[in-house]
């Protein structure tokens, strides 16, 4: 790893720490928050800048290692950004419907006729 120049290593390390911290925060939100709808917001820490930071770190690392830009990890970041919302969308709507039919859960406003 010593073949990576320090000017790349330091931001990479920083990004790693930030990213990992966001991941940890996001996951702890999943545990700490009280209702499902609140918890739904937690993972977006992971899938937004959590992923972004780590992917960037990875790009820096491999580019430093190879001595030329290695950008393919961008793809991972892009698709995480694109695909995770799909799940959230569908899951959130499903949760609302389930809550409307279930009796013991707090009822959100009726979203659709």
């Amino acid at each position, binding site marked *: *790893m*010593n*073949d*990576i*120049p*320090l000017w*790349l*290593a*330091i931001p*990479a*390390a*920083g990004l*790693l*720490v930030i*990213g*990992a*911290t966001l*991941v*940890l925060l*996001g*996951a*702890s939100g*999943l*545990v700490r928050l009280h209702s*499902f709808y609140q*918890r*739904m917001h*937690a*993972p977006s820490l*992971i*899938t937004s800048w*959590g*992923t972004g930071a*780590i*992917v960037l*770190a*990875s790009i820096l690392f*491999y580019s*430093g*290692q190879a001595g030329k830009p*290695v950008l*393919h*990890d961008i*793809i*991972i*970041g892009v*698709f*995480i950004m694109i*695909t*995770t919302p*799909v*799940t959230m969308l*569908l*899951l959130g*709507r*499903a*949760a609302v*419907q*389930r809550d409307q039919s279930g009796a013991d*859960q707090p009822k959100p406003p009726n979203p659709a006729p």
Partner: protein
Amino acid sequence: MSALILSYALAYAQTAIAIAVCLCCWRLIRGPRAQDRVLALDTLYASTMLLLIVSGIRMGTSFFFEAAVIMAVLGFVSSVALAKLLFRGEVIE
């Protein structure tokens, strides 16, 4: 020096993400409702993918890329199916 900095950062990142996965797992098992589990699984997926990337950096190989891409591109398919089942009671109509 680079190695030292990076290895500390990587060790932290790896452990932190692993703990994050554990937290996801807690929610996964705990529920209480199905949507919580799906949410937890999706998060677990994403976190695991990041763990994969970080571990790849730590081991110095780039061979985990394919697995990570697959997780990023296809990981949501099962979550979508799970969500759809919750909404419609049926995955494909």
